[in-house]
């Protein structure tokens, strides 16, 4: 019995088409023209309890719209959603009690009061027993460092702190399902990794089902094995992440600023990288992440020479999708 089942889901918006110029605006007053936008265009899938599923696609693909319908705050144009046995938008409050939501671009916290007040309020809203409340607060403090900004008003928090506070709110009541919409957007690498690790831990220890919508491939790679690729409201791929990478290839690029010299780069070539550009103090290494992974390359690099700065760029999802389309035609 899947915990989430989506059947032929559609969401259409009617947008007003504004005609150009003053004459156009005048005509619009009397005869409004509409165009229909299909944000979600026939989506079906099912998710079992305890799965971590990545929902990846470029901006505007319909990820957030689908998530909002799963949460129950948007009503589908047609199609059926079943979450834990109920239709989310028909029983919004009941569904809301069993889920946790983190929207990367917005906060659930009350703006003018300290984090502690919001959490206390959430406790009443979700009917969290005192024991569970205190236990969770301890976990959040230990792993997310919540105690360091517990008494700070939300408007004074940094983005990373605010995100960690939002995650704490979302998990306070031990929900069955956790929805994350772009949770690591704008965060630095250290905080990103801490949050990803925490999510992995929550899934393992509580068997929480996790749906992660993002356009950042590295989020998914660190967290899940199953991925759904969305584009223009349609699901283009639903399956294993590594299979996806193997089928469409994922080129990664490492750029490093060096403080020394590398005499011989042929060893790196023989390890399987595709291309090396070595220019004064900067080296650019392109490779297929299926053949050789980033840690191997970085390890080789730091053993050979002192590095000032290293950046790793993953193939953007847009490229993967483009390759998917190309492969279909």
């Amino acid at each position: 019995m899947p915990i989430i089942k989506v059947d032929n889901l559609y969401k259409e918006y009617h947008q007003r088409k504004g005609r150009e110029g003053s004459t156009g605006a005048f005509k619009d007053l009397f005869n409004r023209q509409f165009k229909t936008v299909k944000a979600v265009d026939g989506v079906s899938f099912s998710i079992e309890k305890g799965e971590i599923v990545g929902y990846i696609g470029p901006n505007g693909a319909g990820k957030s719209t689908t998530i909002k319908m799963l949460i129950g705050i948007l009503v589908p144009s047609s199609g059926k959603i079943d979450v834990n046995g109920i239709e989310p938008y028909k029983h919004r409050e009941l569904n809301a009690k069993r889920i946790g939501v983190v929207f990367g671009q917005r906060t659930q916290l009350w703006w003018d009061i300290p984090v502690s007040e919001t959490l206390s309020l959430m406790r009443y809203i979700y009917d969290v027993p005192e024991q569970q409340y205190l236990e969770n607060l301890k976990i959040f403090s230990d792993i997310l460092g919540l105690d360091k900004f517990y008494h700070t008003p939300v408007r004074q928090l940094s983005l990373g702190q605010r995100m960690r506070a939002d995650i704490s709110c979302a998990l306070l009541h031990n929900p069955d399902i956790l929805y994350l919409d772009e949770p690591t957007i704008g965060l630095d690498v250290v905080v990103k990794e801490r949050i990803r690790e925490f999510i992995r831990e929550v899934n393992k220890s509580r068997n929480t089902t996790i749906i992660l919508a993002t356009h950042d491939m590295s989020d998914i790679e660190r967290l899940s094995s199953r991925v759904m690729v969305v584009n223009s409201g349609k699901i283009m791929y639903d399956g294993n992440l590594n299979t996806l990478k193997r089928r469409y290839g994922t080129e990664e690029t490492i750029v490093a600023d060096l403080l020394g010299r590398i005499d011989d780069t042929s060893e790196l070539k023989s390890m399987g990288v595709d291309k090396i550009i070595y220019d004064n103090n900067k080296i650019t290494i392109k490779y297929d992440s299926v053949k050789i992974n980033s840690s191997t390359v970085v390890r080789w690099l730091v053993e050979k020479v002192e590095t000032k700065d290293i950046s790793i760029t993953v193939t953007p999802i847009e490229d993967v999708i483009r390759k998917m389309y190309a492969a279909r035609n």
Partner: protein
Amino acid sequence: MKKYLKFIQISFNNGLAYRVEYFVGTFRNLVILLVQLAVWKALLTAGPVTTGSGVVTLREMTTYVVISSMIGTLLTVDVIFNMNDRIRNGQIGMDLVKPVNFQTYTFCNMLGQNMFSFLFQLLPILVIGVIFVGIELPSIFNFLLFLVTLINAIVIMFQMNYALGLVAFWYMRGWQSTIVWILNRLFSGRYIPLWFFPPILVTISYFLPLRLMYFVPISIYLGTMAPLDCLYSILQQFAWMLVLYGMTRLMWRAAIKKLVIQGG
């Protein structure tokens, strides 16, 4: 339930954070009150005036405007503005994620705000009313009826504003506030008692719930309403509450389908 009480409490505390706005608002209301007192003094110093409904004295009118001013602190709501705002910036999505009834939640927020507003402005208004002008005091019975109609008025005012706020789910526009503003000034009796209105406007006012929010409670306070009329008015209030409740429920079901949550 306890969570709703907490919402009221937080909303009330927020008032303290926005002290400056409240000072300005209080000052503005006091000025309006003083202007009204000056006008009625000019009109009625020569002697009482006869209207279609009876005789109006200066003391009655000064009491009227002072009580009206106090009711104003409880009935001025930000509901439409807040709902428009939250829909336009998509923050409404965050409200709907929570397992709380949106209407009750909005009501609690309004209540907290208005309670703070009332307490904040009560003292200056009372000072003017009791010490400087001298207002009439009602009988115990009338005062109790007054309180009942006042509580009902708060609910009705909320429901009206909430219904208009729901319109933002469709249109995302801001004209709803203007409608409320105009109707309120005209038919509620907030600034000019309905005693002075021409018969045709009085008739129209009977079809709207607005007179039940200012004119009726104040009339009960002043004792210018016959006891039977008082009870009849209270029944009308309950009737409107039911009608508006049904309306908002229907509107909600339609509105949630139309909702567009901006961002993300």
